[in-house]
């Protein structure tokens, strides 16, 4: 073990605390884990309610069965999301006491509001999940409605905190201390609207494509029954419809970053020197002030950011040397951005393929390649989400709060953070593996209940499993008190 701290000392630049590198890695790892679960609390619960609504309105037993099963999946994922989010809250203090100690009075407030939404979400998720048997169908449906709504509120608040780190506002400082706080200024900071909206839509994209991918896989295995089709259609159409809006919002976000966070924008474009007629370089890496191996689109970046080739973009040379990100961080940001945009267009294309087929024939595209692509779309959406966050977080470096607090001054100076990080990785690996295992067991059990071949057409074990359904007298419903 003693070799590790020595390695750290060599890796970090002079004067940085030894805790800086492990703390950043740990924050990135745990946030990256948590963020994958977020779409299931925010958006998957919405899909579940869509199925539930359809089931009650049209007496559609398949839709009700989907809703009930989805609620059980979301129960598992919600629990993992809640515990991993709790670790994040601890980490804000344990890893970044400099941030919380100095700016908690402002930066902490959005989290306090978030607390209310978490409460509501946890409460109504529980009522919904455990209310299938004993609540009347509509009372039960309405008990679920607060869940995606508080998901929206929770996303807005926590992203408000993140946006504040990018464009801090609403505080009065004296001698570096926060002496007054304007809560509205903190919440509705410059980056709030586009970041919150972009993340909110991302949740729908990810949840929709991941769920659709599960049913696409089933259809590829020959389960072409109505149950699988319905599960696919509800989730896939939601994601495909959100996709063009998301790209529009991303485009707005990019222009806002251009206008207000020039250093991050220079990193996104991997632009060494300020100038006009800046090309949009696809791929490529920055190496000693030169961009290599990329494919340049002449004047692309200038046109995209200011609608004219003469738009002037500040490069990395405009960033004071002391706070200029090193090449390798610039490359991470630049390539992550390319991954996000590239996968976004791939997903858009997939949605368009579907839209075309549906418009012509009211059916899925006939090609098996469509299902194969749809099966992978979930993973691509997750990659897109993660790379977007890498752009935001790494693109902010070396600042934690842009212009006000360097990451180096935010980090803790106590303890062996490598050990803490190792513990986090071990526990999260176990929890992640267990979650996958549990979901697979659930799926196998359901497939068995459906009689191997699939959901069937309302026959056999299917109907027995339908909530609010007939057949199971002991679970007859009682109205709400």
């Amino acid at each position, binding site marked *: 073990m003693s070799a590790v701290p020595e390695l750290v000392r060599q890796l970090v630049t002079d004067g940085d605390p030894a805790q800086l590198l492990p703390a950043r890695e740990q924050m990135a790892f745990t946030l990256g884990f948590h963020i994958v679960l977020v779409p299931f609390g925010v958006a998957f619960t919405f899909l579940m309610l869509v199925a539930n609504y359809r089931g009650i309105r049209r007496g559609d037993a398949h839709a009700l069965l989907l809703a009930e099963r989805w609620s059980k999946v979301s*129960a*598992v994922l*919600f*629990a*993992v999301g*809640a*515990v991993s989010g*709790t*670790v994040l809250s*601890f980490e*804000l*203090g*344990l890893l970044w*006491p*400099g941030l*919380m*100690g*100095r*700016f*908690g*009075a402002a930066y*902490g407030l959005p989290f306090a*509001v*978030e*607390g*209310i939404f*978490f*409460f*509501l979400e946890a*409460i*109504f*998720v*529980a009522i919904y*999940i*455990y*209310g*299938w*048997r*004993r*609540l009347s169908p509509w009372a039960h449906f309405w008990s679920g409605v*607060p869940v995606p709504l508080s998901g929206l509120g929770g996303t807005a608040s926590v992203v408000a905190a993140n946006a504040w780190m990018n464009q801090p506002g609403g505080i009065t400082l004296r001698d570096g201390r*926060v002496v*007054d*706080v*304007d*809560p509205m200024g903190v919440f509705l900071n410059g980056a709030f609207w586009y970041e919150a909206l972009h993340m909110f839509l991302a949740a729908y994209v990810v949840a929709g494509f991941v769920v659709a991918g599960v049913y696409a896989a089933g259809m590829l295995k020959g389960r072409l029954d109505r149950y699988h089709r319905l599960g696919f259609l509800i989730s896939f159409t939601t994601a495909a419809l959100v996709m063009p809006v998301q790209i529009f919002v991303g485009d707005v976000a990019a222009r806002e970053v251009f206008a207000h966070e020039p250093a991050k924008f220079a990193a996104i474009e991997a632009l060494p020197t300020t100038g006009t007629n800046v090309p949009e370089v696809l791929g490529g890496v920055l190496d000693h002030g030169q961009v290599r191996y990329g494919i340049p689109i002449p004047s692309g970046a200038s046109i995209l950011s200011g609608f004219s080739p003469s738009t002037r973009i500040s490069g990395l040379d405009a960033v004071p040397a002391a706070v200029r990100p090193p090449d390798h961080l610039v490359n991470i940001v630049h390539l992550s951005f390319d991954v996000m945009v590239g996968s976004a267009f791939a997903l858009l294309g997939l949605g368009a393929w579907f839209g075309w087929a549906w418009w012509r024939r009211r059916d899925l595209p006939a090609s098996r390649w469509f299902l194969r692509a749809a099966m992978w779309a979930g993973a691509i959406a997750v990659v897109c989400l993660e790379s977007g966050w890498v752009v935001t977080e790494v693109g902010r470096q070396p600042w934690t709060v842009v212009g006000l607090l360097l990451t180096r001054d935010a980090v*803790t*100076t*106590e*303890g062996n953070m490598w050990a803490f990080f190792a*513990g986090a990785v071990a526990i999260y690996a176990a*929890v992640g593996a*267990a*979650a996958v295992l*549990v979901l697979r*067991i659930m799926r196998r*059990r359901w497939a068995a209940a459906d009689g191997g071949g699939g959901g069937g057409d309302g026959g056999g074990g299917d109907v027995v499993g339908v*909530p609010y359904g007939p057949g199971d007298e002991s679970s007859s419903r*009682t109205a709400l*008190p």
Partner: protein
Amino acid sequence: MSTVVAGGLLLGVLAYAVFGGADFGAGFWDLTAGGADRGRAARARIDHSLAPVWEANHTWLIYCLVVFWSAFPAAFAAVMTTMYLPLGLAAFGIVLRGSGFAFRKAVLRTSQQRLGGAAFAASSVITPFFFGAVGGGIASGRVPAGGHGDPVHSWLNPMSVLTGGLAVAVCAYLAAVLLAADARREGDGPLEAWFRRRAWLAAWFSGAMALGGLVGARADAPRLFGRLFGEALPLTALSVLSGGAALLLVRRASPRVVRYLAGGAVGALVLAWGSGQYPYLLGDHTTIESAAAPQSSLATLTAVFGLAVLLVVPSLALLYVLQQRAHLEDT
């Protein structure tokens, strides 16, 4: 204003101790319920009582954290830079507990169930212990105002170990009383007796830990000790009396009354600690007022409290009512 917000924080700690504490305690009995067959009835009772509510109960912890760091940022950083070991371990314990519980609900096979259950149960002991130890360390002034206190002795000292043990015992007591009341409501006599015996055991143990803690406080936190028998005496007494009453009445009174008494005992204990420390936030060196964030932050937090009272409290009440009337059950 700072006192109002500190009161809001204390209420959060109270709620977490009462609701989260019962969950942790149930985990403790789960751990000690014996082999797969012998412990089945007790475990099923625990699962049934906890499954719908544990997540909401757990959210009180988040509430405490966010209020603490927004209202008393520097003191929060001081606690975090001193107590990082127990707090980090407690956080890991929460991961194991929550996920172990959620997974066990979803999995049928006993061997897998047992694994999830073991994680759940073990973390039900370590998490309250560390939280209790941190509380003891703060009360005895072991967190310096500027933070960076002794990373080991701040929580590994006689007083903190006793408060940690007290937290574990109190959780176990609370859970046993509530589960006994639940079992009686369901007409399960043997299980009721099983939990009742354990409630008595935990009560004696809690009493011993509390006495030990008081001896520790007399040496380490004389001011707190004085106030527990001075200004805070009514609360201290209330805690002991209602705790005892819950034990005596668990066979006779309505389960709801038993619940209130047992919860009241734990709540009064937390309030006694809080008023014993008042007006200090950390030990007897950092006052609530001097540690507070600017007025505007405190005002915002007060508004958040108002929202919580309007939105969260009725929702929680709905959840508990549905749960108590058996409208929530596993499918």
